[in-house]
Structures are given as structure tokens and as C-alpha cells.
């Protein structure tokens, strides 16, 4: 299988993708790190060393504090919301009732829609207007007598971020459902059968047997969702525009670089984003690839 000639063939075959990823991803990450340590501000490159003071400045920046808080609020609500809803849908679909296929496809389809479309539609639905200008969800709640649910949505002081997380949950929980359903289906039927024979209720089967089985799926799902929420950009642009109260690191970075020309600061935010994603993902990758090679 391995001939000497093959080596050169292999190198030729992987070169395009290695160039694409090597330069466009890793090369540019290195460049960003370098710029984040420079004093570059303005149109022309300026690589004067400014060192880690840049990062200290960023951490002292009140806008960046808002960003971190918003990212945390978004991440927690989005990750747990999507996981719980996804698992719930998966268990319901797992009952094998007629129509399962139809509902599965229906629940999955929001994830194919563009974040920017999801964002603008939900912004229109989450219209905070009151009284005679009431619209969207608030109007619906008013109609069906759930008045206590009427709220200011993304304009709610402090918790506007939660409203944006809801739109992300709408988009991604179907994907989580697909992951969990595939996980549930991979549990050998004999195990469930055995538990049933031993008199376990359906609830016990799910909580004691299936959930432990689903742990690896949950881990993968959390990584997928966590890294989506760290880099959330489209949804924020769509729902919040550029309001400071709903700012996130990606928006700050985009604005400070393209509108403000603070290259060092944009690069520093980018580097921190990369770092936080790496902290999340590298241990997971090591874990996955190890278990994979054992197979």
C-alpha cells in the first residue's frame, strides 16, 4: 500500500488544502497575535511593539466587560436551552409513533436557515411596541390570554441578550434533536428490552440507561453550541444592530477594526476569541481522536 512514489503523490494531493488552511487560518492567526501586541492604529501598518499592555487595556475596557457578560448570558441560556429542548424532542421522536419522519424533518429545518434571516424575522416577531402598535409575539400573547408573557424582548434592560439566545435556540435545537436521536438509536435494543423485562419504567429506562449512553453526544453537542455562541455575529447584527447593551466580542472586534481602525485592539479581541475556543475544543479533540483510534 505504501510505496515511495506514493509519498509524492500524497504531498501533491494534500497541498491545496494545506495551503488553504495553513496560510488562511494558521498563518493569519500568527499575524493577528503579532498585531495584537503592536501599537497599530490607523490605515498604515505599524508593528511597533506594545506588548501585553494591549491586553491589560482591553481587560480594563468597560465595553469589553459588557461583551464578556453578554457572551456568558447568551452561552448559558443558548447551550442549556438547546440541549434540553433537543433531548426532549429526541425522546418523544424515539417512541416510534407514526409520523416520526415528518416531525423529525420539520424540527430540523430551522437550522438550514441563515442566521441573518432568523435574526430579522425574530426581531420583527419580538416587537417591543405596546398598546395600539403591539405586534408579533406580544400581540399573540395578548390574544391567547398569556398577558404575563408580554415583555420588552431584546430591549429588556440587562436581559435583552436572553431574547437573542431564544432565537438561537429556535435555530439550533432541531440539530441537537438529530444528534440525540442518532445517539438514542445507537443504544442496542436488547439493553432496553432487558430493562423492561426487569420491570423498569420508561422513565427509569431513559434516566438510568439512556442518559449515561448519551454522555459523549452531550459533550459533542456542548462543544458545537459553545463555539457557535463564542463567535455569534450574524444574529446580533440582525436583532440588535450595534447597540452597546447587546454588544458581543465579535461585533466589537469588527467595529473597532473596520470603523475605528484600532487594529491592535481588533486583533487582541480576535486572539482572545481564538484562545477561548481552543481551551474549549482542544481537550475535546484529544479525547475524541483517542477514542477513535482505539476503535
Amino acid at each position, binding site marked *: *500500500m505504501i510505496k515511495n512514489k*506514493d*509519498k509524492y*503523490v500524497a*504531498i501533491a*494531493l494534500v497541498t491545496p*488544502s494545506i495551503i*488553504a*488552511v495553513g496560510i*488562511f*487560518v*494558521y*498563518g*493569519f*492567526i500568527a*499575524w*493577528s497575535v503579532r498585531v495584537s501586541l503592536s501599537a497599530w492604529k490607523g490605515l498604515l501598518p505599524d508593528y511597533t511593539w506594545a506588548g501585553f499592555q494591549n491586553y491589560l487595556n482591553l481587560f480594563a475596557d468597560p465595553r469589553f466587560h459588557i461583551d464578556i457578560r453578554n457572551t456568558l448570558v447568551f452561552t448559558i441560556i443558548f447551550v442549556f436551552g438547546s440541549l434540553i429542548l433537543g433531548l*426532549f*424532542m429526541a425522546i*418523544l421522536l424515539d*417512541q416510534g*409513533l407514526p409520523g416520526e419522519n415528518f*416531525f423529525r*424533518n420539520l424540527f*430540523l*429545518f*430551522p437550522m*438550514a*436557515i*441563515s*442566521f*441573518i434571516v432568523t435574526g*430579522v*424575522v425574530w426581531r*420583527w*416577531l419580538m416587537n417591543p411596541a405596546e398598546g395600539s*402598535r403591539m*405586534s408579533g409575539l406580544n400581540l399573540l400573547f395578548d390574544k391567547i390570554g398569556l398577558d404575563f408573557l408580554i415583555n420588552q424582548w431584546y430591549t429588556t434592560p440587562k436581559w435583552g441578550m436572553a431574547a437573542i439566545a431564544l432565537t438561537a435556540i*429556535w435555530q439550533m435545537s*432541531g440539530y441537537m434533536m438529530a444528534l440525540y436521536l*442518532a445517539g438514542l438509536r445507537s443504544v442496542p435494543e436488547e439493553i432496553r428490552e432487558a430493562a423492561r423485562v426487569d420491570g423498569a419504567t420508561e422513565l427509569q429506562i431513559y434516566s438510568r440507561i439512556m442518559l449515561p449512553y448519551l454522555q*459523549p453526544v452531550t459533550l459533542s453537542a456542548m*462543544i458545537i453550541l459553545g*463555539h457557535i455562541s*463564542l463567535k455569534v*455575529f*450574524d444574529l446580533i*447584527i*440582525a436583532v440588535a444592530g450595534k447597540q452597546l447593551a447587546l454588544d458581543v466580542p*465579535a461585533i466589537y*472586534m469588527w467595529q473597532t*477594526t473596520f470603523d475605528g481602525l484600532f487594529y491592535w485592539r481588533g486583533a487582541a479581541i*480576535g486572539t482572545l476569541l*481564538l484562545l477561548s*475556543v*481552543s481551551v474549549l475544543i482542544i481537550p475535546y*479533540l484529544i479525547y475524541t*481522536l483517542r477514542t*477513535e483510534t482505539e*476503535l
Partner: protein
Amino acid sequence: MLKRFVSTQTFRRSLRSSGTYLSFLVFTFLVLLPVYWMTRSAFSSGSDLIKLPLVYFPPPTLKNVNTLYEQIPFDQYLLNSVKFSLFTTLLTLLVSFLAAYAFARIRFPGSNILMWALILSMALPEIGTIVPLYRILKTLKLLDSIAGLTFVMTSTLTPFTVWVLVTFIKQVPYEIEEAAILDGANLPQIFWYILLPVTIPGLVTMGLINFVNAWNNLLYPLSFTTSPSAKTLSVAITEVYAGFSPWGKPWELIMAVGVVMTIPIIGLVLITQRSIVRGLTGGAIK
């Protein structure tokens, strides 16, 4: 006694399944509500849009599309979206297929590290490299062009595509290739006559996922385009969104672009649901 037991069993079971269907209905409502709202707004005239009491199914009108054509070069944006997504898909498949073959079949020095580097790069946020990308595109005179967007998007989509295609190629028994090599087939022939036919499901899956990803992408077109010659539909949304109307934002126009962006995707996904699900869940489930 036994009969009674059976009937409570059935009773319980039907109770449970009606509960399940009830939940399904609630979820269906939640999934479809935004879609309904978008479609209703897109085909509604400005005055029906905000009329109270709410008009659930306003007389449909195509007026909004005409207004869109007056405000933005809509055809051009649509064509750009199609070109960008299609070229990205094809280029990504080509580049990834070649690399996936090497990773799946040939053991070469550093292959493990390279595969790792590819997989890790999948997770890194695209926004982290947006500035250097902008500068290199500028240097190469590829700013504000479909070609520039295509290259950048391809570099983003390649790692995941390679990763999935490696699994697909590994499933093809090597003996078939071996026999072909003994018969004097060269590499292009092996690709074309042996691997391509059997990896078509994988290529279709990844082609679709990549198409949808490029079609939906906002960050790159928003950052790297300045004129209608390369702007895509997702940028069109932000442009229409920036406009004003008597009811705050021109929602009927925004939703009209949204509908145009969503319909082809729904169509694609509905036709090929099964293979997409396999591609998306394959990595996470073993």
C-alpha cells in the same frame, strides 16, 4: 384479570402517545410561527402589515418584490449568491476530495499532524482572521469579487469536508483499487472510475452542506464586498434593513428577501434530508 391489565396498559399507552402528539403540535407551531410571520409579511402590502386587528392572511401582493427591484439590484445579488455558493461548493469538493484520498489511503510523514491541524482549524472562529484576510484580498486585487469570496469560503469549509470524506473513502475496500492498479490504472482513472461512483453519497452530502453554508454566510460578503458586483443576498438583507419606513423598518421588504433566501434552502434540504442528517451527525456519534 389479565384482560383488565391489558386494557389499562393500552389506555396508558394511548394517553402517552396523545401527550407526545400534543407536544409535537406545540413544537410544530413554534417552528412554523416565524416562517408564517415571514411569509405573511413578505407578501403583504405595507398597510396590511401593521393593521389592527391583525390580518392573518392579507391579500397576497408581489408589490414588495417590485419595490425591492427599485431599491437594490436584486437580480445581481441573487446571481452573486448563486455563483458564490456554487463555485465554493465545487472548489471545496475538489480540493477536499484530493486531500481526503491522501489521508485515507496513503501513509505519509506528518499525515497525523496535518489531519489534526485541519480538524482544529474547523473550530476556530472565522472572525479571528477577518482582518488579515481583508488585507491579503486587497493585495491580490480580489476584494469585492466573487473569486475572492470563493477562495476564502473554500478555506473555511475544506477541513470539515476533508474530515467527512476521509470516512467515506475508508469505507471503500482497498482491494478494488489494488486490482485496478495491477491492471495498470493510473490515479486519475482510479478517482474517476472507482472512487467517484462509490463516494457520490458523501460528495452529495458535503456538497449540500457547503452550499447551504456559503449561501447563508454573512460575515465574508459583508466584510469583503463594497459594490453590487459581488454583494450577496445576505448583505442585501442588511442593506434593506438599514432603510426606513413609516412603521419603523421596511419589514415587508426585509421579509421578502428572507423568503427568497430561504425557499431554495428548504427545497434542497427537503429533497436530501437523509444524507444531510448523516453528514451532520456522523462526526459526533460513533
